[in-house]
């Protein structure tokens, strides 16, 4: 019976949490899946049936390969398992093929890859010191963190219903963060470099990594007041870091460099032709900007300030992913958003440089980078918000009354959108109104959160290196 006990993992709440959420993911297999399902099936087909030189050129399907090479290799490996499930899904011409075995294989691949995520969460929990709190399980910080990460419903919905592979990618990021907390900086840098070559969206947080590693790893000591000690610069560390990043990039981009395909790869990775707001508005700053523009244009029309003929016919809310002009406020170009993002990131980077707070400061800077880039980035997907959610942790009482009120407001908003709206006459004229409202409402909330986090980072005093996190 003892063997059974160990095998069943009695008393070990972490295994129970991990197993429980895995079982829930299995139950979610028959749920709705989005076009992303077809995207990944297409990539399986491309990497399996075509030679490497064709991977970034293939365009039979509209869902072309737009992730870095490591992800393509990952799909290649998966495709070799896929052929035992259903050979037909690996045919490039089988657009929108989704037999039950294909569905099963794809879903199981996401669930399986989440093992990396579970391991990363386990490592993160080891970094937390939970001796201060009482014996109650539900109050232990490790337990709370595990629940927030493993049972994160945003991730569940995006990965296991909508269909994506964010789980293991977040796992890589969490693992690299954990390694930095554990002072294993080289491993952390290596893992982050690998992550970048899986999904380049993580470039948003690269400045945080760069500055932190430079400031806290390459400069090996601080002056007593916390400021920088220039003569403690270690060339060895800088060079080894550079070498790690260089080798990883070489492994990833090397083959395409040899084939002279780098420009094509980059054009696939950074598609600037797509519109400012993705079809379903991400709730970031530009959503508010667009809403303001719309409101102003309506007012302008009513008050006869604007000439109706000058207004472009295509509306931002029509759901097509193209480039648009704003009517009242100045139009926004990709360069402008990049500059806005950089400006938004700068204060937190400066904080990281001048007032290093150890790994915790790094974590906060990372979160700010992610959130800032979400706020101001060009062509941001709603899923990018997940980047910002994960590194956060609860420290003080969670919400004050204003915030609680705001969160509760989400309820009536949803009710309005789902139940009331379809019965009103506006459904035909403004079909995207509910999404617009949801986005704008969420944008307000997210802007507020971003603001608060920034303020807390700028105000907090620097922490000396001797204090444990």
């Amino acid at each position, binding site marked *: 019976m003892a063997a059974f006990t160990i095998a069943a*993992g*009695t*008393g070990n709440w972490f295994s129970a949490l991990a197993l429980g959420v895995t*079982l*829930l993911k*299995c139950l*979610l297999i028959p*749920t709705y899946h989005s076009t992303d399902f077809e995207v990944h099936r297409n990539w399986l087909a491309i990497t399996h049936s075509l030679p490497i030189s064709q991977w970034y050129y293939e365009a039979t399907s509209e869902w072309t390969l737009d992730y870095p090479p490591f992800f393509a290799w990952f799909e290649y490996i998966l495709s070799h398992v896929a052929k035992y499930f259903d050979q037909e899904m690996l045919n490039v011409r089988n657009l929108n093929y989704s037999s039950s075995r294909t569905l099963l294989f794809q879903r199981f691949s996401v669930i399986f890859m989440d093992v990396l995520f579970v391991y990363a969460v386990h490592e993160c929990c080891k970094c937390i010191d939970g001796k201060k709190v009482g014996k109650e399980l539900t109050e232990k910080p490790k337990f709370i963190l595990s629940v927030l990460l493993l049972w994160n419903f945003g991730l569940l919905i995006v990965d296991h219903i909508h269909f994506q592979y964010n789980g293991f990618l977040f796992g890589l990021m969490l693992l690299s963060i954990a390694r930095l907390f554990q002072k294993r900086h080289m491993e952390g840098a290596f893992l982050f470099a690998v992550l970048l070559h899986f999904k380049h969206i993580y470039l948003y947080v690269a400045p945080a990594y760069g500055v932190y590693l430079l400031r806290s790893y390459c400069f090996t000591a601080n002056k007593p007041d916390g400021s920088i000690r220039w003569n403690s610069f270690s060339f060895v560390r800088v060079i080894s870091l550079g070498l790690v990043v260089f080798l990883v990039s070489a492994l990833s981009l090397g083959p395409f460099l040899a084939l002279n395909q780098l420009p094509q790869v980059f054009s696939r990775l950074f598609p600037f032709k797509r519109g400012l707001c993705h079809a379903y508005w991400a709730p970031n700053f530009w959503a508010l900007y667009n809403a303001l523009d719309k409101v102003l244009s309506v007012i302008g029309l009513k008050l006869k300030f604007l000439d109706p003929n000058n207004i472009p016919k295509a509306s931002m809310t029509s759901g097509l992913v193209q480039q648009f002009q704003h009517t009242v406020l100045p139009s926004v170009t990709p360069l402008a958003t990049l500059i806005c993002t950089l400006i938004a990131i700068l204060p937190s980077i400066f904080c990281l440089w001048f007032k290093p707070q150890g790994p915790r400061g790094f974590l906060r800077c990372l979160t700010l980078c992610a959130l800032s880039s979400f706020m101001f980035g060009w062509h941001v997907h709603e899923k990018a918000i997940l980047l910002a959610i994960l590194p956060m942790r609860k420290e003080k009482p969670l919400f004050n009354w204003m915030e609680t009120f705001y969160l509760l407001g989400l309820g009536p908003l949803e009710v309005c959108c789902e139940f009331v709206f379809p019965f009103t006459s506006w459904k035909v004229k403004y079909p995207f109104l509910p999404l617009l409202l949801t986005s704008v409402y969420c944008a307000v909330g997210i802007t507020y959160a971003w603001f608060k986090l920034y303020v807390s980072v700028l105000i907090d005093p620097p922490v000396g290196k001797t204090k444990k996190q």
Partner: protein
Amino acid sequence: MEKWYLMTIVVLIGLTVRWTVSLNSYSGAGKPPMFGDYEAQRHWQEITFNLPVKQWYFNSSDNNLQYWGLDYPPLTAYHSLLCAYMAKFINPDWIALHTSRGYESQAHKLFMRTTVLIADLLIYIPAVVLYCCCLKDISTKKKIANALCILLYPGLILIDYGHFQYNSVSLGFALWGVLGVSCDWDLLGSLAFCLAINYKQMELYHSLPFFCFLLGKCFKKGLKGKGFVLLVKLACTVVASFILCWLPFFTEREQTLQVLRRLFPVDRGLFEDKVANIWCSFNVFLKIRDILPRHIQLIMSFCFTFLSLLPACIKLILQPSSKGFKFTLVSCALSFFLFSFQVHEKSILLVSLPVCLVLSEIPFMSTWFLLVSTFSLLPLLLKDELLMPSVVTTMAFFIACVTSFSIFEKTSEEELQLKSFSISVRKYLPCFTFLSRMIQYLFLISVITMVLLTLMTVTLDPPQKLPDLFSVLVCFVSCLNFLFFLVYFNIIIMWDSKSGRNQKKIS
């Protein structure tokens, strides 16, 4: 209770699991001409909405009883009528007379699944939560863990939200009855139980323990005084509730008789299809269904059923206690399941509910029983393509029970409530010390057999000459397990008196 937020999370987890299971297929999906239980429920909505009450249970050109005629008591009919009104509001095509036969669509599936969820949420789940909160002598955390395990019981979820039925209504009412009677609200409890019987006649499996417990209480209070008053009040409550439910059908004698004929089809034989009871298992060796005439079969099953449940019931009349009541519910329902007439495999749920109620007292045996009960439903679940949800929910239930109750540490004789029994046996056989070990080994064998049989049923094809081989094996193995449990639960009941008198009163 302090940890109300944890209880809310438990309920939400239960609801999530239920809703995700309901995404799967249902009984008879896409299988004309007869379809399955899902179509039966839809058809009853059609019949009750379009036809007058007098014609619900009669064969007519509008109501062909061969095509899923109503064979549950009036409360099911009223519930179907209620659902039909909601259906009419959303889409009348779903219940149009004749033309809606075999109607299947995503929207309709969503509607039907929602009706199950609402019924569950209103009746069964509050009963479970309240029951767990009222448990005595255990910590709050254990109460919440208990609620989690009961709500995660796979059998009920898979049948109600997968195969498609409304067992949560009748089981919920029965649970309210148990609650009422255990907390000394006898009249309300018996009213709730009458509602349960009037929803599904299979609840009669639970009727004897209720009757004996309440009778025992009356005797205890003294038949000359308060006891007699209580008896009269109970009788009036029962009669009144029955009259209320059957009112439209009491106007003519023929109506009442026809309903009774539909509820108790004695013409249909000892058993139908494969079910994990004695007669089906016996039939493998000796074809009693074909050899013996109908009335002999009836008498035989009657005798066996009542002989096996009589000791426990008599004990309950003489020594009514809440604990004895719950265990008698288990053994009575199990006796009926194993020996009664025309038993369906889904009736195992009637045994599972009382076993869920004693989960906190004998976690190891209860978990074992509940796993076997889910396993016995395997042929039915495979027919409905519910393999993945059943495996996942069974594993989730097992993990929940193991982490909540640490069941593998509770296998000593005292934990299994077999101490007084083994002491009695040791008077004659001094070497009888291996009971606990033996039960652990039996558990291991049982689980390994179940896993192996599941794997075989799923991966292999049965041989040509014996196409039902795997279903029969599943039923046979389950039946053996159930027989063991029948003996076990009866032992607990009969040997309970000695420990019951020595300890303080635990109600």
